[in-house]
């Protein structure tokens, strides 16, 4: 790995491909992974290998800690099932939980656009406090900046989280083994469709509310009960499809899942059918996938289903032998196999 001093100054992206950042570079799909792999990881790989995934685990004295950071820019700021504040806490504590860490502390940075209504800010801050209390974390430091009207989009929040790792497991894609079971903690695609419905003014018969929630309790419960978790990943941008592809690529193993076992709520499916979107690629904010030995499926499901946030946990598939890309396959409801490919960028609604 090159040191920072040797790091080349020429841009690692062929400029003719993407001379500008596109929205898809933040969409959780292939373009975002190219940005991480070609620009950020080579630039920031110093003495410690940064983790491109949810959180980095590192040693401090005799203690293993985990750290992560995330910025929240969602529009609209308030949506059915949550707001920017609760999301900013859930997202960061979930990233810590996915590394198997118990979240301890958060920082909160606010970039506020001049003119934001004080009442809106209070609503968001109150939600942050409630979400932090529920997840058992304290917000212990922060920062506030106000930018000129027109130079921000109401409010951006960054949260950084630190957690403690209290088990000996190595929870990472490299620990995933052929034969492992793949579980998902509940119905997928709800957050993305809730946001899209509000943002685009789409009126469906029922309100789709976001699944935004803390995953800390079920994860800590799985760890406390001594389950041999190989890997966990929360399903955010790019949805279940993106997560399965990331794990498969990182472990070089195949993954096969059963479409009929993947839970998608009826209203989410209906909205996706209308718009031509794939619910397996739509973002969640309170769902995760777990990889563990087949022998522990029942025990894990029993634990997950004790918690409201993961009451809909199901077994959706298995890890298979090492496989060249594309590595993730799905058995369709009528029984045929197909590729479940990494989404390319943002999903776009179709014409007809």
């Amino acid at each position, binding site marked *: 790995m090159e040191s920072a001093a040797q790091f080349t100054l020429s841009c690692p992206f062929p400029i003719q*491909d993407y001379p*500008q*950042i*596109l*929205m*898809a570079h933040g969409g959780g799909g*292939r*373009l975002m992974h190219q940005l991480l792999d070609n620009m950020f990881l080579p630039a920031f790989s110093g003495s410690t290998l940064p983790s491109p995934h949810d959180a980095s685990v590192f040693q401090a004295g005799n203690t293993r800690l985990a750290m992560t950071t995330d910025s929240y820019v969602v529009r609209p700021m308030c949506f059915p099932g949550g707001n920017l504040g609760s999301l900013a806490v859930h997202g960061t504590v979930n990233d810590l939980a996915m590394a198997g860490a118990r979240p301890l502390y958060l920082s909160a940075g606010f970039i506020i656009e001049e003119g934001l209504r004080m009442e809106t800010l209070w609503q968001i801050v109150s939600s942050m406090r409630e979400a932090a209390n529920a997840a058992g974390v304290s917000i212990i430091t922060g920062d506030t900046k106000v930018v000129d009207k027109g130079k921000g989009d109401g409010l951006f929040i960054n949260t950084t989280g630190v957690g403690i790792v209290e088990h000996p497991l190595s929870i990472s894609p490299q620990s995933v083994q052929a034969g492992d079971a793949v579980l998902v903690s509940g119905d997928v695609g709800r957050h993305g469709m809730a946001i899209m419905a509000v943002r*685009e003014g*789409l009126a469906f018969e029922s309100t789709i509310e976001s699944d935004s929630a803390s995953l800390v309790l079920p994860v800590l419960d799985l760890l406390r009960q001594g389950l041999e978790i190989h890997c966990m990943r929360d399903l955010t941008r790019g949805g279940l499809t993106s997560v399965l592809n990331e794990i498969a690529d990182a472990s070089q193993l195949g993954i*096969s899942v059963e479409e009929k076992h993947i839970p998608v709520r*009826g209203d989410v*499916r*209906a909205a996706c*059918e209308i*718009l*031509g979107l794939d619910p397996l690629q739509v973002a969640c904010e309170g769902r995760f996938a777990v990889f563990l030995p087949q022998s522990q499926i029942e025990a894990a499901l029993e634990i997950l289903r004790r918690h409201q946030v993961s009451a809909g946990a199901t077994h959706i598939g298995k890890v*298979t032998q090492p496989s060249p890309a*594309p590595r993730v*396959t799905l*058995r*369709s*409801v*009528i*029984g*045929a*196999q*197909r*590729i479940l*490919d990494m989404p*390319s*960028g943002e999903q*776009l*609604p*179709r*014409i*007809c």
Partner: protein
Amino acid sequence: MKFIDEYRDSTATKRYAQEIARITTRPWTLMEVCGGQTHAIIKFGIDELLPKKIELIHGPGCPVCVTPVEIIDKALEIASRPEVIFCSFGDMLRVPGSQTDLLAVKARGGDVRIVYSPLDAVKLAEANPQRQVVFFAVGFETTAPATAMTVYQASQKGLKNFSLLVSHVLVPPAIEAVLGSEGCRVQAFLAAGHVCAVMGYEEYFPIAARYRVPIVVTGFEPLDILQGVLMCIEQLEIGRAEVQNQYSRSVRQSGNRPARELMARVFQVVPRKWRGVGEIPMSGLGLRHEYDGFDAEHRFGVAEIRVEESSECRSGLVLQGKIKPHECPAFGTRCTPEHPLGATMVSSEGACAAYYRYRRSPKPVTS
């Protein structure tokens, strides 16, 4: 989910597949016209359930794919102007023009917006009287009535800041172009159910008679498609060539009369270029002269833009069913969803996109 799950039932699909296998005695080649059907076939693996004697080839029915590169370049030119709010259906944004695409224009500051209904563009024009709002009117007979409604409403409201870049195309001339092309192997058609929901299927009677091909109006779910295939094979095996309606829960013979009347009031049938295929006579819809004032090509002076298509992209052959996507030398190598040579690789209904996304290789995936 009601009205979806019933049509994806695995027991019923197997029964249909068995019945198709039972009655098939010879090799037959069928074309599904619509890209939505192509995606369903590849996504659900419907072709894997069919006997090897039956080949499904993928037709030209993807409106995004057949929009000529020239029109895309006109769209890019208009969308780049500071006074313009350019409204488009989502899946046009990634379609490559000769140099760039609408997503890149948006990244450079162009005001490009995704609309879910063409009427949203009219609302935008009303709400932004100081801006020029342009709607990119693409699609087959399915989207044309909604486009016609925008023209009707804008005209009723006297909106001066609303116009359309029109590239509507028609299915029956495309079917005739396929049938009339050299080396055509298609022996029967699955016609696009949603197009027929608007237009009915009377237009297909003369085509079925002239070319001696069965045409079955077919829906989009696995059971619809299998039943459509079964109806085609039943006809082929006994030497008949009729128009039948599989999608009777949505389609009537005369279609949707108010929609057709509105289309006839606003549009006239015109020759239209098809990407990768060339000009097909009487295959498109253009604004009638009394609505010339809404024509964005004239308003923004882009009518004269002429562009040659990429010589490497073979989407024309894919769209005519002459090659399968993976038979193109650029497939998956020089042409991917991130770097498409043609629209068939990026449209949600494009055959190349379906193969890349769900299948990648000519053989179905095995576990």
